[in-house]
């Protein structure tokens, strides 16, 4: 199994779980007709995706014909004013919500037409998700929360793997505690660990640092940056924070459900300026 980038504090996770990276499994895009290797598709691809809520005069067009892909090995930040469609884009890309039109592919699999059950299985194996808050099941310990996707998949959750992953994200001492005894930052770290336990193809994080102080937020963003260093994994974060966005390889700005601007490795000031120009959603 290909190792995680050298120096990664998460490399032991891949080396010791014995859990094959999802993208290492042979798939239809492995070789072409002549046997030549074909590059693996981007972990997440959206093609002409639109999402409308409500009907008739109460309808809200949250996404409008969005076509974008999130390549492996990248950290993408999706920014925009409130109501621009950031969270809707995230939900559709992660398979948490169904687009009104268009297609979404995760690791080459078209999500449309999948049953709820198959979608759930795909999500637990290929997608990691970090919410803004209330990430953890309140009645499970931190260790149990981290191991949850494996247990849902019927796979054993090795204690040493969970421990090492917990230590890698900085909550090794809190593994036996219940979520309500943790700080916000510790809960987010636990959520990141849970998102990583199955070595997913993509990690989505919805405003992961919104409720955190600067130092803690920086630590969280560092973990997500590190996770994106895996060439087979894409990390997508939704944020309204220019500083958080500046940690990304690419910044997509949404306005009225459409991608209006794409920036490559911008600094915080550039992101802030673009956001300022966009102004609040009317």
């Amino acid at each position, binding site marked *: 199994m290909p190792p995680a980038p050298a120096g990664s504090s998460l490399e032991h996770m891949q080396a010791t779980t014995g859990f094959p990276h999802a993208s290492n499994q042979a798939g239809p895009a492995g070789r072409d007709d002549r046997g030549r290797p074909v590059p693996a598709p981007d972990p997440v691809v959206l093609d002409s995706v639109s999402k409308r809520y409500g009907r008739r005069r109460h309808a809200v067009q949250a996404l409008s014909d969005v076509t974008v892909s999130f390549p492996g090995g990248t950290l993408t930040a999706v920014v925009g004013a409130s109501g621009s469609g950031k*969270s809707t884009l995230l*939900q559709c890309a992660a*398979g*948490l*919500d169904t687009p009104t039109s268009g297609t979404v592919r995760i690791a080459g699999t078209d999500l449309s037409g999948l049953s*709820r*059950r198959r979608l*759930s*299985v795909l*999500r*637990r*194996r290929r*997608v990691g*998700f970090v*919410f*803004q*808050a*209330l*990430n*953890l*099941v*309140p*009645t*499970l*310990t931190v260790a*149990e929360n981290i191991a*949850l*996707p494996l*247990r*849902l*998949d019927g796979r054993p959750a090795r204690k040493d793997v969970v421990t090492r992953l917990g230590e890698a994200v900085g909550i090794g001492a809190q593994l036996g505690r*219940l979520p309500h005894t943790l700080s916000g930052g510790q809960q987010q770290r636990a959520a990141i660990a*849970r998102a990583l336990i199955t070595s997913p193809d993509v990690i989505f994080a*919805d405003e992961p640092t919104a409720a955190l102080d600067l130092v803690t937020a920086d630590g969280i963003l560092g973990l997500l940056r590190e996770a994106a260093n895996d060439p087979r994994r894409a990390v997508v974060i939704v944020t309204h924070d220019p500083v958080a966005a500046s940690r990304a390889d690419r910044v997509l700005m949404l306005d009225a459900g459409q991608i209006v601007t794409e920036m490559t490795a911008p600094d915080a000031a550039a992101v802030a300026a673009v956001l300022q120009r966009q102004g609040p959603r009317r």
Partner: protein
Amino acid sequence: MMGVIAASLRRPAPLIGSLVALVLSALIIVIAASFIGTGSHATGAVDRLAAADVIVTGRQQLTVRADGGPQTVPLPDYRRVPAALAARLGSLPGARAAVPDASFPVALILPGGRVVTGTAAAPLAGQSWTSARLAPFRLIAGTPPAAPGQVVVGLQLARQGGLRTGSVVRLAGADRPALRVTGVASDGRADAASASSVFFAPAQAAALYGHPGQADLIGVIARNGTGSPALAAEVRSVTGGQYTVATGAARGAAEDPAIAGDDADIEGLGGSAGADIIVIALFVVAGTVALSVSQRHRQFALLRAVGATPGQVRRAVLAELAVLGVAGGAAGWLPGCWLARRAVRGMVGHDLLPPGAAAWTSPWLLLIAVGSCVVIGALSGLLAARRAGRAAPADALRDSAADRRWPHPVRTGLGLAGLGGSGALVVAITRGGAGTQELGTALSLLLALMVTVALLGPLLAALAELLLRLPARAGGVAGRLAMAEVASQPRRMASAFLPVALSLAFAGTVYFLDTTAGHTADVQERQRLTAAEVVTAPGPGVAPAALAAISRQPGALDVVGLTPAQITVTDPDLDTIAGEVVSGGSLPGVLDLHVTAGSLRRLAPGQIALSAVEASAGQMNAHLGSTITAWLPDGAPYRARVSAIFTRSFGFADVLIPASAAAGHLPSPAVGQILAQGGPPGALGGLRNRFPGLQVSGRQLVNAEDQQMQSQTDYLNKLILASIVLLAAITVINTLVMTTVGRRQALLLLRRVGATTGQLLGVTAWQSALLAGTGIVLGVTAGGVTLSTMTRAITGTWPYVPVTAGVALIVAVIALTLAGTLGPTVLLLRRSGADQA
């Protein structure tokens, strides 16, 4: 997922409501199962026949073949056997003696004028001195009765009545000379037999018994060295399958044929009423579980977002309910046994069960309770589990507690269908009548209405909010906040007011059905009796000769004798109902039964009169001229043509039979009461010399059988009412506490924003007002529709709702609602205030 389930018990708060509901269900199941077990195990004490190793009786079950298959009920009186059978049985090799036993009810007037009739459980009974050896009774003073006019009394009776050898007593109501006590006998036990036995000389006993050549039973005493089973086998070789041969504890039923009826009643109570209440419990558990699951919606959405399939979430919820079912069943087992014992003791006190009957509280009840609660939990949680499994993963991203804006179309459609179905049930009951199954039918109709209310709940909550919106604005910010919360969470509000409506509707229906029946009986009694005088006597009644004697009084116009009897009919199931045997003159002269078809002027042999309730389409479906079969107390069939239908039957009887048809088939030849019209007032008092103990009253007509049945029905209804009230009260509190605790986040947020404790309590008070108001309106509507339908079908009247009782019920519901909302809110706010400090 099993780990997720086990982990949910670490923070059991969201599960406590469901657990409480399951514990309640376990209580009811244990009580119902205990009743069924008690009925099937109760045999009655073997007292008067203790010395008889084998007892032979007629088949005490009446079996009738009907369209739905054979139906069997116990007979209320002995199916008599030929007395000559005793001679054949006495000659068997294993038998020492065979004694025919023939007992008849008596009432003694003691030397001081006091009248002794025995107790309801052990009425005073006369029998031949030859039966004494069946106990066995032995003389401890004096001599046995050798000639008419001589009696021997039991030791307890002698002590209680101050009787001794030489005392003179009289038979109440009998046209007989006085009796002299020639001896006192004891069976060696201070038991009911010793207090209720009067022994006559054989010839006089046979005359008083009134069934020549017959006996109630034959008691066979074994020779030394012959066991009961061997003797029973010999007896069966003679009797074949024609008679019942009982040994051991089974002889208890032979000693008192009413025991079989009692057993059937308590089994029926456990079965049918228990089933109705279990369905209500299922309803309650379903509502509580739904509320618990909805309060954890985000948790289930989170599981779905992390990758749990809908099936995994569903199974988690059902497994959680199974665990709760085990816990609830175990917790409800012992309290249920305790309550069952209390209830059975009450039933013994009301002669619903034989003396000494004890509740069946086998350890099997634990298995029954746990198993049933697991099934109830799983069944009631199916919809909630499905809803949890369908939780949208995207909901994990939202922190909103708002329900969907529009009501679910399927739920609304089902609710409207339920409304239609309830309407159809109302029509069916109105047309078909409910008759003797009124309580069960009422609960079924009410359940249908409450299911409709549950399905339409969110719509009704939205409507209530709309109606209360303007008045709430007058309540300032508290009112506005309260209505805003209601408007955004109609489903949660519906879950909260449903138990309020349920408790009011069920408790009110059961209670006011009873008050209506009682009131109707009172009104009809006043309208019914037109006779100037009612003549009765203690014990079995007045000698038949009194009827002729009163008829010969100067000026007597109409003189009619009425004797209560339990008659068995198919209505449409085989059922025993209150009847009257009519003797003497023309009934309309002394009773106005409001005849709607035919005439009661002369009830001739081959004729029968029915109450309108019994004749209705849902019961016997009989009309004037129909030929039906009724069975007399000893099982003798009476095929007759319906000659009259009457409506004033409450507190009286549902069937009238001519005395000539019933002669020889009743427990006693005495006439229960004589109604007389005409003649100078007070003249009948002069007959007391001839008929000692005669009582002449103005305006009180009593059917002792119906009175006792009504008293027993009242007690059973009270038991059912108590169960429903307990279930309802705890459910209301439980659900409202759950709902209030579920608002914790919202309350704390408001406090942080700056709301004072008074304002927060004001919000809760406004919501309580909406909950209580909506619950009361719906409960009164559902209960009112049910009550009106039932009373119109049964009595033809509107419900009788005493104002005091109605107000008390509503006040109780309001108090419960406030206790379930304001109480937890105060505690929540205190605790949050302490945390912040």
